[in-house]
């Protein structure tokens, strides 16, 4: 006897309504591959590209935030629609509340807060970002903080490029960064 998805969704929704599910997650396909997206009551706290195992990702959430984690496609349907619509180029903004609780360092928070101010279609450099964060010369540390961004796409860490002009590294792989920058008009379509 296999548990039916209908039954599991019912349990998850009851848990959400009762307020005992601290984290809700879902997985769905996008132009950038299958994403695992999780949210707390404050906002989206994790967006993960394919690569890291689901067990490891959920384990990180459990250890750092709360083990009361449930899966619900329904509860994340709106978030899913917003992300897919953005990645398919139907909308030009991605308006979703963000929860950066997974970011523990103050510098890391500052880097992600400041990169969120870089407008769509624009890019900045690691050095410039470090400077804005009050640490001129900490370009490498800014790069590390961006690499640990738990909410890529929504917090646009892809809008930071090396001053050499190449696309540069990206946690999800440089082709995804290229895709996002082309989508946003920061790079010409290849």
């Amino acid at each position, binding site marked *: 006897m296999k548990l039916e998805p209908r039954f*599991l969704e019912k*349990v998850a929704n*009851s848990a959400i309504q*009762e307020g*005992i*599910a601290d984290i809700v997650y879902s997985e769905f396909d996008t132009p950038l591959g299958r994403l695992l997206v999780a949210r707390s009551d404050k906002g989206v706290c994790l967006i993960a590209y394919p690569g890291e195992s689901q067990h490891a990702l959920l384990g990180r959430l*459990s250890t750092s935030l709360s083990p009361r*984690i*449930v899966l619900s496609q329904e509860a994340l349907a709106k978030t899913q629609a917003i992300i897919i619509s953005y990645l398919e180029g139907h909308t030009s903004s991605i308006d979703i509340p963000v929860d950066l609780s997974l970011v523990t360092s103050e510098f890391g928070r500052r880097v992600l807060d400041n990169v969120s101010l870089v407008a769509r279609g624009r890019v900045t450099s690691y050095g410039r970002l470090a400077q804005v964060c009050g640490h001129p010369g900490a370009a490498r540390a800014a790069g590390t903080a961006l690499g640990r961004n738990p909410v890529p796409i929504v917090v646009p860490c892809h809008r930071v490029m090396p001053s050499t002009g190449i696309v540069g590294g990206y946690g999800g792989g440089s082709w995804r960064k290229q895709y996002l920058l082309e989508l946003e008009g920061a790079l010409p379509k290849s």
Partner: protein
Amino acid sequence: MSSLPPFWLLVEQHGDELMRYARRLSGDDAEDVLQEALLKALRSYPKLGDGNHLRAWLYRVTTTAAWDHSARRRRRPEVLTDSLPVTTTDPHENDDDFGSLIGQLSPGARAALTLRYVEDLSYESIGTRLGCSPEAARQRVSTAVRSLRKRLT
């Protein structure tokens, strides 16, 4: 900082066997019972402290949920209708001889018999699942067997 695994991974790992167990304890009400059990488990999950014996804990919570469900049903006044009694829609139920055999026993007796003769657990493991000592578990199985024998003779 929690050392507990994500709750939903537990559900994915043990949900099927818990549903089978709930069905043996509560028949057609298994879905309601398991839903109550999982919600109850989720409510108290962060208070568990460590991640040991989680499977046994889930069985215990399911057993308690089945008892509570059964008690609530007994308290509920019976509604009289002139329609035919509802029969089971579970296609597997008729195949489950043991399930139908113990179906009339109390949830406690069903739990004890299921854990001993279906799950084939030792009295120590049954005690862990039911939250009692091995000796008390042996006693419960023995009492359940006597009840079953009485019903069959």
